[in-house]
């Protein structure tokens, strides 16, 4: 393992800004040589994402030390890009509040976060595979899933290598234009977003689940030599399979069904109570049969906000 400095920037007052990557490369010319970049923590709230990436670094390091032939490709893991944000509970770049993950491919003569994106992208482009670990930007608790953006350079079948329950295969939207995942695909890296975790929290179970998914992926593309349990036979889901279920009223939201539940049409999903007099304002029912993929997870909900997301097959 080599620890590589990828980005460096002086600060006005605080410590210098640094982004480090961890590189694992086979020395054996007969190996696959496939290359994978895994980038995490582009936003400072993505604690679970950083932790999974760091656990992966540790796993690869221990296994490589025990068996030098374990690594069969070229793997770069970047656990935390917005370390300044992590150190102060800020999602975005702390001075100007811009989103590093909206600045790719970056610009070396531009604004600060464009320069950061430029320095980072120089180091993470050109890989055969790119995986971005990400949280949901909104207030939802979701089943971990793979996100693919239609770009003409995605490999939908390989999304199954992670072995997660489903992969969301969606159209490009304008806000994707500056994201790492999208820009990877523009530069001909097959890229995936792994979306999981609750904002600013780390859960042990999902850490293990996602660590397994990354190891499975690395094994299937031929970057490491290992045995691992098979995961799910991933369902690739497009927009038509998704049902959005809003709360008609605002108040205190109580989810009843947890994510991962299979429910039938008419099942009670959640309740909304008046925040002040405590009366029950609304019961939210499943409009279709299907799998609960996400629910709103903050206790207070605004009117017409999506309370549940479900997917249905067939």
């Amino acid at each position, binding site marked *: 393992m080599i620890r590589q400095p990828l980005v460096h920037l*002086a600060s*006005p007052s605080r410590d210098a800004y640094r982004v480090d990557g961890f590189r694992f490369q086979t020395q054996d010319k007969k190996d696959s040589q496939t290359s994978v970049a895994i980038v995490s923590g582009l936003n400072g709230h993505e604690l679970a994402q950083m932790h999974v990436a760091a656990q992966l670094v540790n796993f690869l390091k221990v296994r490589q030390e025990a068996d030098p032939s374990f690594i069969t490709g070229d793997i770069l893991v970047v656990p935390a890009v917005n370390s300044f944000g992590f150190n102060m509970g800020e999602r975005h770049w702390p001075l100007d*509040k811009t989103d590093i993950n909206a600045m790719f491919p970056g610009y070396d003569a531009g604004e600060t976060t*464009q320069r950061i994106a430029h320095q980072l992208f120089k180091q993470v482009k050109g890989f055969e595979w790119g995986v971005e670990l990400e949280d949901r930007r909104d207030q939802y608790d979701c089943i971990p899933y793979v996100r693919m953006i239609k770009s003409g350079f995605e490999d939908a079948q390989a999304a199954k290598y992670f072995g997660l329950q489903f992969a969301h295969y969606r159209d490009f939207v*304008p*806000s994707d234009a500056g994201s790492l995942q999208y820009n990877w695909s523009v530069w001909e890296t097959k890229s995936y977003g792994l979306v999981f975790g609750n904002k600013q929290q780390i859960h042990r179970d999902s850490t293990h689940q996602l660590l397994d998914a990354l190891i499975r992926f690395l094994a299937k593309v031929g970057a490491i030599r290992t045995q691992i349990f098979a995961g799910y036979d991933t369902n690739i889901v497009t927009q038509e399979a998704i049902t959005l279920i809003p709360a008609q009223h605002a108040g*205190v939201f109580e989810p009843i069904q947890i994510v991962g539940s299979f429910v039938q049409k008419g099942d009670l999903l959640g309740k909304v109570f008046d*925040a002040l007099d405590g009366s029950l304002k609304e019961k939210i029912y499943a409009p279709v049969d299907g799998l609960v993929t996400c629910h709103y997870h903050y206790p207070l909900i605004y009117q017409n*906000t999506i309370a549940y997301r479900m997917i249905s097959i067939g």
Partner: protein
Amino acid sequence: MLETLVSIELPVGEHYYLKRHRFTPVDVSADNGKRISIISGTHGDELEGIYVISLLAEWLKANPSLITGTIDLYPSLNSLGIDSITRTVPFYQTDLNRIFPGTAKDTFPNQIAAGIVEAIQGSDIAIDIHASNIFLRELPQVRIASTYRDSLVPLAKQLNMDFIWVHDAITVLEATLAHSLNQLGTHTLVVEYGVGMRLTPTYGEQLLDGLFNLMAEQGILAIAPRSVRVPFYSDQGEVYYVNSPAAGLFVPAMDHCQMVVKDQLIGHIHDPYGVESPVPCYTPGAGVLFTLREYPIVYEGSLLARIFDDQKGVCV
């Protein structure tokens, strides 16, 4: 007439209301059928537009017989943000001007965006007033995506602004209010001036004159057109950027919006500990300094100034 167009229930005993103040002709036969919407407060830390709109409302209340079209005023779209010095939509931390056209059944910011588009669409003209942010001070200017150059530049010239900046169409800007409205056939001009969290009353009064002139030219007010400034126009030169070469404290050595010559000192970047000597920064060419950094703390890359000219150079 103050109207409530959208009502969204908030969790604890409050509503978000999208309100507009609508002025129509007293004498219906005087109505030329045109409708203009004047908008501000998409970003909660931008207050310049609120001032102009309040001045305009005062004038319209005092001169109802001069109104010959429909004038809709929307001063505070992101009202929770305006009342709390929050640029984004509070709680969601969403930039409202990056999620248009929005959707009615989705997050709070998306509902607001959808409500705004629904309310304003059908207007002939919309003026979306922005005030930069807390970092940069801007000369009064109109920004136009090149896609809409032909229809919007003639209108922009009526607005008494100093600068018309036609920029390339960028994918991320497809999610702005102006883009959504232009797509729906409302000629929408983005006006930008001043600085975030502050008021620059002289600029506000300059825009007010421009609005009077535009509405006179469009037959929405029965008044004589005002004499307006001839703006400089980005197609006849080049905009270039001066980004900070170092981290530290930026101390400007010149005033905003003045004519500058090449190699003039813009300011210094000071090292707070004084280990490094202050780094001087010079103008790359002659022209008008239409953007100047207001907030002193900078990293490498922070924008210090923008100059409009046809020459190009480098900041050292």
